[in-house]
């Protein structure tokens, strides 16, 4: 994490907007706090499909703690490609196999998965998008967890 991006408030310098976000992980041994976006039933066409677009409110920065795609594919189907766009620029992308049991971590730091886990705590100033290319007629689930901080 780039701590220089965390400013304002007290303690470690994080000023969260509004109420304390809810714990994302259920077990209190590893509870961490953030706001979770969960989207299911995103149908993907044969071409590159935008799975979600998230706009950050003015005056805020979004620290993305975790972003992942989970599929409902059979083991014989494969995902070809995904990409993560931050503030108008594709910053992360890969071609990979996404099978039924896989969860592709685009951004994240909690282990257990065997697929991509590229960076942690990615900071978004205005907008982020996640896209993927997979066989037509399949649907995926996207989960994004973040905190908002004040931008000075």
């Amino acid at each position, binding site marked *: 994490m780039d701590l220089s991006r965390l400013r304002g408030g007290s303690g470690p310098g994080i000023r969260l907007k509004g109420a304390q976000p809810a714990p994302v992980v259920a*077990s209190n041994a590893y509870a961490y706090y953030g706001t979770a976006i*969960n*989207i299911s*039933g995103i149908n993907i066409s044969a071409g590159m499909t935008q799975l979600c677009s*998230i*706009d950050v*409110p003015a005056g805020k920065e979004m620290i993305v703690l975790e972003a992942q795609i989970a599929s409902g594919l059979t083991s014989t189907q494969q995902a070809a490609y995904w990409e993560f766009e931050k503030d108008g620029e594709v910053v992360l992308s890969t071609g990979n196999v996404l099978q039924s049991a896989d969860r592709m971590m685009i951004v994240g730091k909690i282990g*257990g*998965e065997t697929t991509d886990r590229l960076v942690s705590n990615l900071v978004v100033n205005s907008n982020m998008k996640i896209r993927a290319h997979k066989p037509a007629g399949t649907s995926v689930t996207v989960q994004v967890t973040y905190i*908002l901080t004040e931008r000075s």
Partner: protein
Amino acid sequence: MMQIINLPDGVTLNINEGATFHPEGLPDNRAVYTIKNQVATSEGMPLQLFAGNYYCQPGDTVQLQGDITDSSGNTATEINLPVTVKMPLVRHANGQPTTDEIYLNVALVNGVITATGKIERSGDWKILIERNNEALQRIGADFKLVAGDITFLA
């Protein structure tokens, strides 16, 4: 067509038509199983459950075995894992979980779970079912366990 969803914190979410936003989290559709016929051993010797705890010595190799059973009480023989996975054992202090974990090796064959590992240090080590359900979810398992937490006092 896009759906535009304004979140309470000012974030705006754009998703495709037909997709569903879940403000309360994704629905949990995993099948639910329980653990029956649970047997614990230490260095191959049976451990007796006393006051809710299994007592063993630091450095002992412990093993926990049980049947994964469905709502009818039948062993779910269709449940198998192709590889040996890890089961977290979380050390507690004064009744509270710490971030200190060790991992047992877990084989799950024809609905029979066998977890084996060495508890090197003295302490209150617990298998937290919810923590393990999170681990199962992470590896894409389509089931979860409902059972009490299991404690080894070493």
